[in-house]
């Protein structure tokens, strides 16, 4: 007999239709199943029934099915429950355990609070992060790297991301810091993996060759079609940036044909932002794929509602439809040997991260920190300049991160957020982005609901593609 005692189905099983498939995602095991119509409607009925009643009486659901078929379906569900693959036991809520003091794995170095573009949606206030335009000095950068190495515990590898504004405006310092970081890490048997996030305006041949030689991973910004990109990503005199950046981006991406979709090793990603003006952003992704770009990410703008370009509730249906279309296009392109990877459709399930990692999410404020050009330490790049969240300064002699803020971020895990505790996406989404949550609600533990809708849609398509891929290679169990 299927055991449903104290079992909240919609919290622990998500069923949905995608493409021509009816899918069940078992939240606690991370398993995926294809259901036939009868099973799909039976589970759907159970969920409906449970939304109005405390307990479930299986005699009162599935009565449109002939008795023998209902029994068959229930027996299969029961077997899967025994195998811990569907209706699997709910994981007991358990706070993640954190090392004290925090072990910092990664640092975002804001080497330039200045920019040569004035992208309209820039959360950095077109590069300055609400402060003065400033470049990081080598001395501050060296202090930052020392800080990272000192606070990285026994980790053999740390990550440094050169960010801005536009980091290539401070390339001399970037080069010095890469040389210094490699040397300083080697001395203590560690390694630093470097990444650079750039708008590609200054990514000339020489810089490309340098980044190749130093094995720096690179994230390049492009919003897609020329008119879409140029509307949001102009130069100061309002001239669009597409014609300048696309040749630079293509020259770079051609050098890294073997990039891992999971951002491992030396990778590149071309990333963009979609807004109210391109809810058909799947066309932008395909535009990039048609240019020959293989690693693509495009993500929703996060902006306050008074901006003309911010996404509103009416846009959501169109956005979801775009994800649906994009899912099918990913398959079409793969079939035509024009395969590309869409970042948010890569879902680690059976080979994905462990539950403790999934509970805590990004690690901002205790595993990941950002450093401003003047040496201020913040929980992540999006918090830079927000005094209330400042963790400390590199220029103070004993520059430990402020423990009260570290604790706030540690406590803001999935289980601290009411909406997340019952959400089927909780172990993949990990409670969303702290910065988006704070921007939306003013609190670390209140979620950004529009972001949730999009997150769940992306996961649905990602799981669907996972299934379609498994069916194609015949590795289904």
């Amino acid at each position, binding site marked *: 007999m299927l055991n449903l005692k104290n079992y909240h189905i919609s919290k622990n099983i998500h069923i949905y239709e995608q493409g021509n498939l009816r899918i069940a995602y078992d939240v606690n*095991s991370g398993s995926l*199943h294809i259901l036939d119509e009868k*099973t799909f409607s039976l589970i759907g009925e159970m969920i409906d029934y449970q939304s109005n009643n405390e307990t479930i009486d299986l005699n009162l659901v599935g009565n449109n099915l002939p008795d023998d078929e209902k029994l*068959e379906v229930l027996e299969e569900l029961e077997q899967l429950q025994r195998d811990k693959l569907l209706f699997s036991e709910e994981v007991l809520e358990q706070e993640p355990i954190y090392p004290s003091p925090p072990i910092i794995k990664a640092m975002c170095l804001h080497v330039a609070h200045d920019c040569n573009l004035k992208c309209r949606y820039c959360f950095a206030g077109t590069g300055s992060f609400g402060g003065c335009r400033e470049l990081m000095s080598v001395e501050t950068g060296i202090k930052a790297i020392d800080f990272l190495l000192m606070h990285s515990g026994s980790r053999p590898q740390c990550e440094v991301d050169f960010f801005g504004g536009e980091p290539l405006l401070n390339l001399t310092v970037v080069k010095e810091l890469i040389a210094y970081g490699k040397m300083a890490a080697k001395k203590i048997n560690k390694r630093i993996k470097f990444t650079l996030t750039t708008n590609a305006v200054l990514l000339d041949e020489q810089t490309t060759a340098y980044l190749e030689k130093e094995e720096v991973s690179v*994230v390049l910004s492009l919003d897609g079609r020329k008119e879409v990109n140029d509307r949001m990503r102009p130069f100061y005199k309002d001239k669009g940036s597409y014609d300048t950046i696309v040749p630079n981006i293509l020259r770079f991406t051609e050098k890294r044909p073997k990039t891992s979709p999971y951002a491992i090793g030396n990778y590149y990603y071309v990333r963009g932002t979609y807004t109210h003006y391109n809810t058909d952003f799947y066309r932008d992704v395909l535009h990039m794929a048609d240019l020959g770009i293989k690693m693509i990410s495009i993500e929703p703008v996060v902006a306050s509602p008074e901006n003309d370009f911010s996404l509103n509730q009416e846009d959501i249906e169109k956005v979801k439809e775009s994800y649906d279309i994009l899912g099918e296009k990913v398959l079409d392109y793969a079939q035509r040997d024009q395969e590309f990877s869409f970042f948010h459709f890569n879902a680690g399930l059976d080979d994905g*991260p462990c539950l403790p*990692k999934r509970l805590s999410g990004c*690690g901002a404020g205790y595993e990941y920190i950002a450093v401003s050009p003047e040496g201020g330490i913040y929980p992540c790049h999006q918090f830079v300049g927000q005094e209330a969240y400042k963790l400390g300064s590199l220029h103070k002699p004993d520059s430990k991160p402020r423990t009260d803020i570290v604790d706030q971020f540690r406590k803001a895990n999935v289980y601290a957020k009411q909406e997340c505790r019952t959400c089927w996406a909780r172990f993949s989404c990990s409670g969303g982005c702290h910065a988006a949550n704070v921007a939306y609600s003013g609190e670390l533990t209140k979620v950004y609901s529009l972001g949730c809708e999009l997150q769940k849609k992306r996961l649905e398509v990602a799981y669907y593609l996972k299934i379609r891929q498994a069916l194609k290679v015949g590795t289904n169990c």
Partner: protein
Amino acid sequence: MAKHIQTIIKGNLSVTIKNGGCGKCQTSCQSACKTSCTVGNQVCEK
């Protein structure tokens, strides 16, 4: 062979609450602004 349900991915996520948490994985950002790995699309490095 099940007639109504086809299992495609067999996960064992709940077990990892006991044996996981080694912390070897990279950090992950799930925001819109930065494409470093998000938790959901990371692979375990253990």
